[in-house]
């Protein structure tokens, strides 16, 4: 059919869409432990790998009870027919082995397609690290990201991302950071006051947040920036009045934030080091919670109560062309978060009936979908860099905790359990 391809083309393939796509069915048997020291790490490695792949939202994992009795640990041991046949009916198998030596832990990971036996191995890599639980987790995250990137067509996974949030676990409200699956929670700031609204810079090296640091005996809300690379606060100017809710431009060169230095709370934009400050909103009332369009950097969404209740407004990043984003009935619409592909907005909305739930909106068509319902207060969504996951705070378990879910609202998962935890922000890749 396609013999008459353009000259110079190496290979052709034809495919199409129109009826939706099914998820790829992947089997993940236990990894083989080659040395006795690797045995305890194997369970960690396999559990983390399974959880990562299961939570990716694009794969369908084959239940282990369907697996053949002989599990492969390297390509020569893989019997493709056993895996492709019912009941496993797998499309691909992810397998491998773990071994330890004097240099540390080595995880050999393989991904083979079992439906067409002639196909070469899709992925074979050796991941190296120290022989510790933490590194076994890290290697499993790396292997999971490699698999997800290949099976989703180039959209990398989020298994190695982190979430910054505000926690009272240490007594004060401080910025904490954890892995995307809730592991490895650790405190970042020790300001012994109040820290709020953390936001990762697009390169992941800095976190801007609202801090209450006294200066000359006066405590006021200011913008603070914490460098995760050098583990300390870096300089940002102080301004009069209340300054809060910073947001990074997608190239990381500018910061938008709310400031009442001119009397009325308005949105200001400055360079990342605080220079070139200028005002972009000029309306009576509170203007706050800016978020840049991460795809283009040319638009800002923010919350304003200029017309009564707080609702969302869309403007160009220089403040021109302000447009109200209408929602069908009244209520508070706050905490806008822009999806990485620039097409969707997530926000929390308190409708007149009283619920506080997460909604997402297609910006072009203004179509709205509700993601949470009848499960406590759900607020402050933030998108994962793959656009498939959301993190938010919820009181559904009784206390205010951090939850994640797929961006269609399915598979909610609680990440934090101790203290009060709020205002999560997902790191870039």
């Amino acid at each position, binding site marked *: *059919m*396609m*013999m008459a*391809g*353009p000259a110079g*083309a*190496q*290979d*052709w*393939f*034809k*495919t*199409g*869409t*129109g*009826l*939706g*796509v*099914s*998820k*790829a069915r992947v089997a993940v048997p236990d990894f083989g432990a080659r040395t006795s020291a690797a045995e305890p790490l194997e369970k960690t490695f396999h559990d983390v790998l399974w959880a990562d792949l299961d939570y990716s*939202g*694009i794969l369908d994992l084959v239940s282990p009870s369907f697996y053949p009795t002989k599990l492969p640990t390297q390509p020569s041991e893989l019997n493709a027919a056993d895996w492709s046949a019912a009941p496993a009916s797998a*499309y691909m198998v992810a397998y491998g082995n773990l071994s330890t030596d004097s240099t540390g832990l080595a995880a050999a990971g393989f991904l083979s*397609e079992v*439906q*067409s036996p*002639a*196909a*070469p191995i*899709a992925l074979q890599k050796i991941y190296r690290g120290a022989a510790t639980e933490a590194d076994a987790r890290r290697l499993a995250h790396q292997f999971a990201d490699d698999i997800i990137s*290949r*099976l*989703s*067509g*180039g*959209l990398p996974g989020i298994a190695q991302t982190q979430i910054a949030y505000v926690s009272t676990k240490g007594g004060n409200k401080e910025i904490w950071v954890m892995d995307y699956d809730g592991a490895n929670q650790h405190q970042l700031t020790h300001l012994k006051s109040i820290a709020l609204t953390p936001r990762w810079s697009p390169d992941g090296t800095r976190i801007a947040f609202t801090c209450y640091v006294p200066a000359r005996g006066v405590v006021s809300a200011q913008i603070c920036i914490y460098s995760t690379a050098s583990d300390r606060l870096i300089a940002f100017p102080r301004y009069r009045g209340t300054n809060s809710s910073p947001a990074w431009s997608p190239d990381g060169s500018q910061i938008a934030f709310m400031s009442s230095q001119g009397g009325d709370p308005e949105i200001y934009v400055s360079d990342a080091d605080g220079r070139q400050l200028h005002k972009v909103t000029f309306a009576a009332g509170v203007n706050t919670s800016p978020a840049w369009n991460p795809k283009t950097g040319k638009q800002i969404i923010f919350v304003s109560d200029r017309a009564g209740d707080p609702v969302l407004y869309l403007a160009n990043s220089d403040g021109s062309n302000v447009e109200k984003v209408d929602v069908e009935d009244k209520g508070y619409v706050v905490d806008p978060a822009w*999806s990485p*592909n620039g*097409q*969707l907005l997530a926000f929390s909305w308190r409708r007149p*009936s009283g619920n506080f739930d997460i*909604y*997402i909106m*297609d910006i*072009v*068509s203004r*179509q*709205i*979908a*509700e*993601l949470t319902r009848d499960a406590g207060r759900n607020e402050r969504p933030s998108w994962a860099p*793959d*656009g*498939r996951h959301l993190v938010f705070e919820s009181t559904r378990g009784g206390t205010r905790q951090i939850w994640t879910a*797929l*961006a*269609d*609202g*399915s598979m909610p998962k609680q990440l934090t359990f101790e203290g009060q935890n709020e205002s999560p922000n997902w790191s870039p890749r």
Partner: protein
Amino acid sequence: MASHAAIRNELSIKTSLYYSLLFHGGLVTLLIISSFYSHRGDLWGGPGGAIQVGLVGSVPGVPLPRPEVETTNRVVDESKGLYKSEPAPKVQPPSDATPIPKFERNKPPKYVTRPSKVLENPAKPPENAVPYGGGGTPTVPYTSFSMGAGTQGGLGFSGTSGGDFGSRYSWYVVAVQRRISMNWLQTTVDPSIQFAPRVVATFDILRNGTVTNAQIMQSSGNASVDRSATRAILDSNPLQALPNDYSGSKVSVEFWFDFKR
């Protein structure tokens, strides 16, 4: 004495009957009143009785796989039958028109028409004839694509360098298909369009996954459908880098879109 006792007994039965009647009458009244006062709360979902629920599955833009849609088999009729399926007898619609009275003076034709001979096929169906529709699942592709092996279900390929990309790297083909399918937003199509003929687009994937030369090969005849297909391809740029052990410098793709609301 005995008769006196009987009379007193009769009297006592009468009073208890009276009280019983009064008690049951009271019970019935209570029942009516209670049925009147029950179900007096608010209806579920507010005054209209309807709960507005946003349909999450219809939200475009989230790069999650859309659920697969079952299609009816257009090639084979799977109903069980004998060697051939018999055509359904024609049902004559009842005619309520009054017949036109015949013109009596017409003479009947002189010749008589004879029924023509029907040639019966004397050959019996062979012993191993498969009953019509009873042959099991056909192996031909009848949906737009399938997730199976690369050589089936609409994934065709041919290479000028003798390559067999589709069968060697079917995981890559499926991944490309999934990515573009997730980025194909039906809201970018004119809402008045319910169905559009197939759009065929072609593009090249370079070694690092960059998409180039995206163009429409066969238009659907509708500009907004064509544009949404092109957007789906360009939004997926860059794709996954080509497999490491693949020797060529680029792969050309023909991708079709079947639009149906």
